[in-house]
């Protein structure tokens, strides 16, 4: 497929005796709204860590628009358009959301190492950051320190930081994790309103959200992709029912 933007070939990784990623061949096309599901410990987060360069694979390749990025450092992959959020909030505690997003924007522009110019000379970055926070309903929290923010706001900031990169590929690791069911809708509203050309892969345990937002679903069990298909196909798949859905809908 020519419109595949991010792909893996034979990706594998083990932690000691535990094979967490086994020969994963995956493709994410432009504008994708794909979901990755699987029981706890299946290796979903690990796959994101491999794609973003946190872990180096034992075997296999990662291609971004056909170019091999397997050896690139995490920050270099970000520069090429792969952004992610974290399952467990991974934020800058003492910065305000406005500072954090401003920094992310400066980094995107390649200005992160400028040490002799105050933010006064990066006015447009600050303004862009504030506009992004407004878009995500975070404007009222823009000047609080991040540690003081309510959990749900921190989840939104996770997404804001990733969006500040203007990514081509967005990897969302359980964006609504820990958010009360009633409030997860707001998060997914934000996600569904993202520009259509961003390729999005999200990990999610809540099947209602998965079936609502994903055009295509990949099921991973014990580090292996066992089946891929449309929501309809996945819902009907006997293998999936057995290993995943059969054990109950949440945190099997």
């Amino acid at each position, binding site marked *: 497929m020519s419109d595949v933007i991010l792909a893996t070939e034979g990706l594998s990784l083990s932690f000691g005796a535990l094979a967490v990623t086994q020969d994963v061949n995956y493709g994410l096309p432009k504008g994708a709204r794909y979901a990755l599901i699987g029981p706890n410990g299946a290796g979903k987060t690990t796959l994101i860590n491999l794609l973003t360069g946190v872990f180096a694979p034992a075997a296999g390749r990662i291609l971004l628009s056909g170019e091999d990025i397997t050896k690139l450092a*995490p920050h270099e992959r970000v520069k090429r358009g792969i952004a992610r959020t*974290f399952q467990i909030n991974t934020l800058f*505690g003492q910065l305000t959301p*406005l*500072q954090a997003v401003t920094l*992310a924007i400066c980094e995107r522009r390649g200005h992160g*190492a400028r040490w002799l110019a105050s933010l006064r000379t990066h006015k447009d970055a*600050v303004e862009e950051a504030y506009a992004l926070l407004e878009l995500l309903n975070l404007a009222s929290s823009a000047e609080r320190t991040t540690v003081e923010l309510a959990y749900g706001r921190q989840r939104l900031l996770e997404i804001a930081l990733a969006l500040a990169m203007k990514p081509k590929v967005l990897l969302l690791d359980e964006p609504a994790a820990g958010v009360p069911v009633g409030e997860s809708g707001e998060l997914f509203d934000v996600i569904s309103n993202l520009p259509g050309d961003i390729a999005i892969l999200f990990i999610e345990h809540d099947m209602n959200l998965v079936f609502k937002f994903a055009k295509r679903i990949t099921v991973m069990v014990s580090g292996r992709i066992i089946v891929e298909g449309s929501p309809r196909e996945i819902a009907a798949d006997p293998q999936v029912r057995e290993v995943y859905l059969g054990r109950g809908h949440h945190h099997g």
Partner: protein
Amino acid sequence: MFAFAKPALATPADRLIAAARWRWYETAFWLGTLLVLFAFPGYLQLASQIAIVGLFALSLDLLMGYAGIISLGHAAFFGFGAYVAGIIAKYGWGEPLSGMVIAGLSAGLLGLIVSPIITRLHGIALLMVTMGLCVLLFEAANRAVWLTGGDDGLQGVEIWPIFGTFTFDLLGRTAYLYALIVLFLMFLVARRIVHSPFGLSLQAMRDNPRRAPAIGTDMGERVRIVYTISAAMAGVAGALIAQTTQFVALEVLSFQRSAEIMIILILGGTGRLFGGLIGAAVFMIARDQLATSYPQYWYLGIGALLVAVVMFARGGVMGGFDRLVRWWRARAGAGR
């Protein structure tokens, strides 16, 4: 002049853009340092020591307070700068300004050379390596008696008058003004850094080294830059001590120097720029007053104070000050 007379800044974005603007209390602080000249003419030598140690603490604050890189051997750069400045003055070039610049650049170069190692280390390993470098330099200076004077210190340092006019007088007026002006200029640089995108990226690395690369921060590069800048600043402080006292004691490279500067910074408050300066003033004045009369209790007292600060007053003197201001503002806000 007064907070309420200023036009209100419209949005959070405007306020962040204006965050680097000069505040009234900063003007007050620096005017206050000038006042020392007239108010305490008998204490100018102590005052210049405070300015110099304050600069040393400021250099550590960029590294430790902002970037979160702990260094237990920062005296390596301070001492290196002191020896470079002392040696070039002893062997024929006593011009202070160029001497200071050369010393600062040399210490910065040393920092740049060491920094690639620093980027790969954390925790105990980082402490050991930074300490090790300092011990190494101490031993080298101790052995190279022909160059450094070893244990006896570097004697015969002769500093020419500043701009050929201002001689270093016995009262210490020139020394104090010289140290103060250099401190002020370095403070301006540090202030710029803190309010720059780079400064934000340092704090981001400190707060979360896992997230920083995920927003595109090249942490290795940032550590190299901040380490170099911090080392250069420490080197300038070292040069000042050599030039204002016209002597270099081996003690400038001692472990005690490294440990003390860390204590001073924690006392004053990390990540606040002014913390190191306030810490230096509190520590050195207390030592001047107490250490001579009660030498046996001095370290005991400092130890107890440090424990108290870490346990009860996180953020040191400046942190406590911050909380006071916030409490006062909240009260004023509630009354409105």
